[in-house]
């Protein structure tokens, strides 16, 4: 498989503050990577190094080039945090400037239509909402048909419809074989789209793999049912962390779903409408970050 990004023993510090420490990473063509971590974990710093905006210690290559080389720049589209609200400039003006940077830009009108921006194309950037500006930034990232996309908090400020449309676009880019690195605090969205998750904690990757692999390491589950039995009975079952009332249902939070389910078996005839949910990425992430804080 063709390697797009490679880092070996990458380190970076702002003065005395170590932000990235011994980062080893390989990203192959066509992968969609979800890069997650708490604020200040080093996600944006890592993206900036891969883009050539910052220089770290260690080996880094993007498209087998130094980050920031003209060749790699021509193949990368970036949607960084913050939008370019340039006074006196319309969406069409900005896209025209961006399109002039590439050799085979997409047709501006089609791109605007796909991103539902066509009605605003002659509007000044300063008059757009936060979500519309985010879509403009996405359009700028896409216009030169990049092979690799860096998306840093891409859906901040977007309403539910725009977010759904955005992730549909990402799905389409996946079909086209694009490689995408996304950071986002909306973990349920990352969970849906990413092939591979990278969890960055204190400047290191503490997990690198798929959601299924992550869930295997974290056996927690939520078991929900209706019952005529009293709540304290369930508190004493193995691996039960907490039991809550949710309207007329009980919700068991277990640290080991399999173990708790086995213990529930003798009571099954008294339980109705049982559902078992494995821990979401967000649940696991919260546990990991709480452990880190402790």
């Amino acid at each position, binding site marked *: 498989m063709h390697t797009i990004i490679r880092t070996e023993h990458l380190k970076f510090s702002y003065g005395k503050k170590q932000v990235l420490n011994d980062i080893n990473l390989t990203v192959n063509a066509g992968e969609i990577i979800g890069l997650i971590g708490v604020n200040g974990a080093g996600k944006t710093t890592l993206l900036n190094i891969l883009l050539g905006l910052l220089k770290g210690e260690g080996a880094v290559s993007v498209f087998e080039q130094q980050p920031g080389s003209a060749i790699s720049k021509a193949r990368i589209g970036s949607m960084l945090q913050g939008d*370019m609200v340039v006074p006196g400039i319309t969406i069409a003006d900005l896209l025209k400037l961006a399109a002039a940077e590439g050799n085979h830009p997409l047709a501006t009108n089609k791109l605007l239509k796909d991103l539902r921006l066509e009605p605003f194309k002659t509007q000044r950037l300063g008059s757009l909402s936060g979500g519309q500006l985010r879509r403009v930034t996405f359009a700028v990232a896409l216009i030169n048909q990049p092979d690799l996309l860096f998306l840093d908090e891409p859906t901040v400020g977007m309403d539910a419809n725009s977010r759904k449309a955005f992730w549909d676009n990402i799905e389409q880019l996946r079909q086209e074989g694009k490689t995408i690195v996304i950071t986002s605090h909306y973990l349920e969205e990352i969970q849906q789209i990413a092939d591979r998750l990278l969890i960055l904690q204190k400047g290191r990757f503490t997990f690198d793999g798929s959601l299924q692999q992550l869930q295997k390491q974290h056996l927690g589950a939520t078991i929900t049912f209706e019952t005529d039995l009293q709540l304290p009975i369930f508190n004493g079952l193995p691996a039960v962390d907490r039991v809550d009332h949710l309207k007329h249902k009980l919700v068991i939070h277990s640290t080991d779903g399999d173990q708790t389910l086995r213990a529930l078996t003798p009571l099954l005839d008294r339980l109705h409408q049982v559902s078992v949910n494995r821990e979401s990425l967000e649940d696991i992430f919260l546990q990991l970050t709480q452990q880190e804080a402790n």
Partner: protein
Amino acid sequence: MKTFLAQLAFDSKRLVVRNVSFIFFSIIMPAGFYLLFTKIMVSGSAAEIKQFNLTYMGQMIVYSVLIEAFFSIASILRRDREKGLTTFLRLSPHGTLPYYTSITFWMLMMSLLSVVVLGGIAVGVNGVRLEITQWLGLIVVVLIGQLPLLMIGIALSHIHREEMLSLASNLLTFPMALVSGLWWPISMLPSWLQAIGKLMPTYFVNNLLNELTSRAKVDLTNLIGIAVWVLLAGLVVVAMTRNEQRRGVALGEA
């Protein structure tokens, strides 16, 4: 070339056509001052008025360029960094060279526009007459003379807070205009203030314009003064840029 032309078109809209503050402060205000002091608040003999119409045109052209560099350019460059435009261009295959070339080009065009507007008023309203070689010389002096002001404007753009930049621009522009004799003759100032005024880049540029329009011998000290200012301000800009890049501040908000 395609990238540069696109950058030129992009900047023409935001820097000139849709930039109300540039039109007002750099063109209308100096033109208004010129009309006010040459048509309404007039005193002296006919010969003195004729001479004043000419010298005050030069002074207002320099004032216009000064406002443009210390307010417009400083603020535009700072805002471009803050809004992520500079970062976006750094990440593009052609880098920031077309951007800086385009900004410089439009700065020159804005200065030429000042010359055209103020020169047009001087000729059309006040009957000022210069030979074509003098007009061309005037344009050359304005273009060269704006370089140190541009450098100072670029240095100012590294001030991160908007209100601080505005304060610094005001604190530099108006005292510099005053002490270098752009508003009234430098001979009216106390001698200690004259000594300071005669070191200002605007004084050197204004002197050169006066020498040119009055056909006096060009004093090389003025050119040397401009060159020294370009050098000093250039060193400050390089030092500030390197310092920011080292600290990673140049990334702006992106």
